[in-house]
């Protein structure tokens, strides 16, 4: 099939599935893209393709800046906002011949777990053709649904605490969050800079790899981008014989974090998890229970740190230089007046306001020591937990902290765990305004994804189908057939992105039993 034909099919799907609300700004029928694809087809015919992405439609989450399409972050405050520049990732993709397939829907500024907190309305997940739409996961729900319903070849999302992996799990797609610093964040609208990571969604791991290979490079404009020196140091470390032999000449040591086997875990999820482990064992790999004791603290720490950074990052939206502004005087005159209160009050949605308040509180002089500082300490503990179980060293740590004294027998190459504790809930349940515990519940969805975010580790969510009998009772509000794929997460040591993707490939498309 020609690239042009493939793109036209995607475009047709964008129209057909427009009710799913995956896009805030879809591809327009008329546009430069048509010529781009014709040229790409020509290049392909003459063997001069620019890259494996030449002529592919890639959807971009709407918190990543594009010059040609608005970048709204699903927020009222950036309604109709055109960024004066392209994000590095957009520029890099276009240079590789890829075409922006539109801007996908999300939770406002990336804050949410179901892609419902959007000024453009919730994203709908029509998976398994239920009469009732399910949650698409968040915050990159639009990107995940666009991929799942063939509205694009692949999509970019952002993952701060699971925002790529959770939607991938809920929509049966592959969602990859690389190591922090691998992909440039220049032009990615910050939610929580120290956690924000550009992630990739695709129907197959091979697609993810194609996109990742293009984007995985240093960018001067992003001060947190891994330097060329660090990159080559990391590359040569993982190319050392003891590490390059993994999978190639020796079986894997697969870790199972016991803290992830929580009581709330849906039986269907546990079932697929166990089957996957059994499958790997059959292949000759070994399974090892490991302990990550700080896991329980990770979620609360995340919900202190991310809102703290968010409250700071979102202070720039005052309506003065760009974005929308409330009518009339917003100077805070008068006894009850606060500067910008009207603009910000009207521009931000409920969840964003909630997190700004949370963050402003935890950074305030009286609370700083008890919340922000404590949470930073927990973050170090989470990192140390991972470093303790991985066979590979954390290449970011000084070489002197060598792990000589550690028992290598107890360490593992990768961790495998569920991406989310349950299957996607029904959207109607989430939109029920009478449910006051809703946002707290939503925070719980991130319990398995947050630790890897806090440690900056590479993690991929792979859809894995499980067959066979499921022991235990099935939850009443989640109706899942036995063939429904469940998202399993593979977590690796920092910089070990390649191994994470390889293990993902081993699990995908395998009928496990």
């Amino acid at each position, binding site marked *: 099939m020609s690239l042009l034909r493939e793109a036209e099919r995607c475009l047709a799907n964008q129209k057909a599935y427009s009710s799913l609300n995956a896009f805030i700004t879809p591809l327009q029928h008329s546009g430069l893209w048509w010529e781009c694809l014709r040229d790409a087809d020509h290049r392909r015919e003459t063997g001069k393709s620019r890259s494996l992405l030449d002529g592919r439609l890639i959807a971009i989450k709407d918190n990543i800046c594009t010059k040609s399409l608005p970048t709204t972050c699903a927020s009222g405050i950036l309604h109709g906002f055109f960024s004066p520049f392209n994000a590095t990732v957009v520029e890099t993709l276009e240079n590789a011949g890829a075409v922006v397939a539109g801007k996908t829907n999300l939770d406002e500024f990336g804050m949410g777990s179901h892609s419902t907190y959007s000024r453009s309305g919730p994203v709908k997940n029509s998976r398994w053709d239920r009469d009732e739409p399910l949650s698409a996961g968040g915050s990159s729900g639009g990107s995940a649904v666009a991929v799942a319903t063939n509205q694009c070849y692949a999509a970019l999302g952002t993952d701060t605490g699971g925002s790529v992996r959770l939607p991938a799990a809920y929509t049966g797609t592959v969602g990859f969050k690389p190591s922090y610093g691998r992909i440039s964040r220049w032009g990615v609208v910050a939610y929580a800079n120290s956690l924000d990571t550009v992630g990739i969604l695709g129907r197959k791991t091979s697609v993810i790899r194609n996109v990742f290979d293009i984007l995985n490079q240093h960018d001067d404009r992003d001060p947190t981008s891994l330097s060329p020196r660090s990159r080559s140091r990391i590359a040569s470390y993982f190319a050392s014989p003891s590490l390059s032999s993994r999978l190639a000449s020796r079986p894997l040591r697969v870790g199972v974090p016991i803290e992830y086997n929580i009581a709330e875990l849906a039986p269907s999820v546990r079932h697929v998890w166990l089957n996957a482990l059994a499958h790997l064992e059959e292949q000759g790999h070994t399974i090892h229970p490991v302990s990550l004791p700080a896991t329980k603290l990770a979620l609360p720490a995340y919900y202190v740190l991310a809102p703290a950074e968010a409250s700071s990052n979102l*202070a720039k939206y005052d309506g003065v230089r760009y974005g929308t502004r409330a009518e009339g005087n917003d100077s805070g005159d008068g006894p009850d007046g606060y500067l910008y209160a009207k603009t910000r009050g009207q521009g931000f949605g409920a969840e964003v306001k909630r997190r700004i308040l949370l963050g402003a509180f935890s950074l305030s002089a009286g609370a700083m020591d008890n919340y922000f500082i404590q949470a930073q300490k927990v973050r170090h503990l989470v990192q140390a937990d991972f470093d303790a179980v991985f066979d590979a060293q954390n290449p970011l740590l000084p070489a002197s902290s060598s792990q000589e004294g550690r028992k290598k027998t107890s360490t593992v190459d990768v961790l495998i765990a569920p991406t989310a504790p349950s299957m996607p809930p029904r959207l109607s349940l989430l939109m029920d305004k009478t449910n006051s515990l809703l946002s707290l519940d939503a925070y719980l969805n991130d319990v398995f994804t947050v630790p890897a975010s806090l440690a900056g580790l590479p993690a991929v969510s792979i859809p894995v189908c499980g067959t066979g009998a499921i022991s235990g009772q099935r939850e009443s509000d989640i109706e899942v057939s036995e063939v429904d794929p469940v998202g399993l997460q593979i977590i690796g040591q920092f910089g070990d992105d390649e191994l994470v993707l390889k293990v993902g490939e081993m699990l995908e498309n395998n009928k496990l039993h």
Partner: protein
Amino acid sequence: MLRPWLLRTTGGARPRIWFHNPQLRLFTPWKATRLPLLPTPQQARQTSSVVHNETIVPLRKQLKEEAKISRAQKRRGDGKAAQTDGWELTVGIEIHAQLNAESKLFSKAPTSINDVPNSNVALFDLAFPGSQPQFQIATLLPALRAAIALHCEIQPVSRFDRKHYFYHDQPAGYQLTQYYEPFAKNGHVDLYDYDGIVPEDGKKVRVEIRQVQLEQDTAKSQEYPPSSQLLDFNRVSHPLIEIITMPQIHSPTTAAVCVKKIQAILQSAGAVTTGMELGGLRADVNVSVRRRNEVPGLYQYHGMTGLGQRTEIKNLSSIKAIEDAIIAEKARQITVLENGGTVEGETRGWTIGSIDTYKLRGKEGEVDYRYMPDPDLGPLIIDDALISTIGKQLPALPDELVDLLVGPKYCLSIEDAKPLIELDDGARLEYYWDVVDVLNCLHPVTDEGPRISAGKIAGNWVLHELGGLLTKADLPWDSQRVPAQALAEIIDQLWQKHITGPTAKLVLAMVFEGDRRPIKQLLEDENLFLQPLSREEYIVLAREAMAKNPQMVLQIRESKQLRKLGWFVGQMMRMGEKGRIEAQRAEEILKEIILDHSG
């Protein structure tokens, strides 16, 4: 970095550099105190670390007003002065100085003072979504020069923090600064008697510097009545340093001297471009008082214990304002305490032209800046080798310069050395070096003698003769007005007795007025070279003068009033051909004739 889209008015990214803000009043204390928690424009204006009162008062006008106020203060202050006996004042200072850097702190946009508004602005400077800071390493160099000149310990690792507050001159909603881990700590500045400290401070006081931190400047905003503010983001993120002293100063004058001295040190280190007059340097002072010979106060600041409750006066923009504000605040606190009240820990303001400080906000209105380490910026790691290289390249500091100038090489008096160093941001001293250099070339030294006078004579001409012309003409310093080469040649001609002193002054005035002929040609054209009179001609002239004033001659002869010879020298100069009479020779001849006669 002109960004064309900044000027465009269509599209979603339309920049709005104006916004409605009716009746934004500067410095309205009564209002600010009523508002809790969040900064109003007025409050925020006072809280940003470099807040700029945009209307720059011309210096002349400011001086006039300050003189008026000081007269007023004297009138009413006599009683108060007596009252302050028995009280000890303690002052600490925070100084914000714009660094001499080519780019902004976190973008490649150039720094500028007078460019077209909003012409030097990068995406990050405007806090565009998705933009990130890029620390410009070169901006560290002037900061390091400043910190080394202030004898600080440079920290191998320092970090940037975000200081949050809303105000329209602060696009990101926070200022990047170094709150938790500044790049320099534990420095000091020495103040000497010749710097102008009060006699009670003795010959020398050392004021310790707690820390020096790097931070961003804010945008410039200008009121546009009735209801708009114009914003110029050229200045946003201009690199600044904040210098925080320990509370170790006990007199308003010494506080002013301290700021003046730090300013001179920064300037001589090449760390800053402009001084206070142009808004390149601003100070906040914290002031407390306690009774002498009584139990120590309850408060401690930066480890200094036993102090009284302090207040902070924000945003002082001249040396005079610092001194006056401290005097006023000291008097206010003493009055409060003597009337049985307590001093509140609060932030106060000072306006040029007033006689009292005024309350900006109390503790309850204190802004919580919610300091947070910046998650985008990594630690700043400064290598020892860099510190020692910069240390070696640092030009001589004011104290070293004073020593040099009053030393045997230049032989200047302290009274001449100080202004030479301080005038015109060091430009006068540069000029002085040039003149001395040229003089030494023109007149190669064989022994120590001539060089010593080169330094001294050049000092006299640069400061007093040239300075006098500038004062008379009311002109600012311009090193090209009389090129150093020309002045040196004039001095050299005088020195070699090719011209007389009055001729030298005349020629200087001609060059000052724009005569650009080479000095030698000018002297030739105007026939100003000294054509020495013969002994006979001197005698004729002397007799002529004596004949006109026989009584004076008698007086000299009879009562040996040799001092009156000078009067005759003057007569001879006047009577003789212009520029040909050498005073010394005239006096010799007069002495000879008048006294010989008597003998």
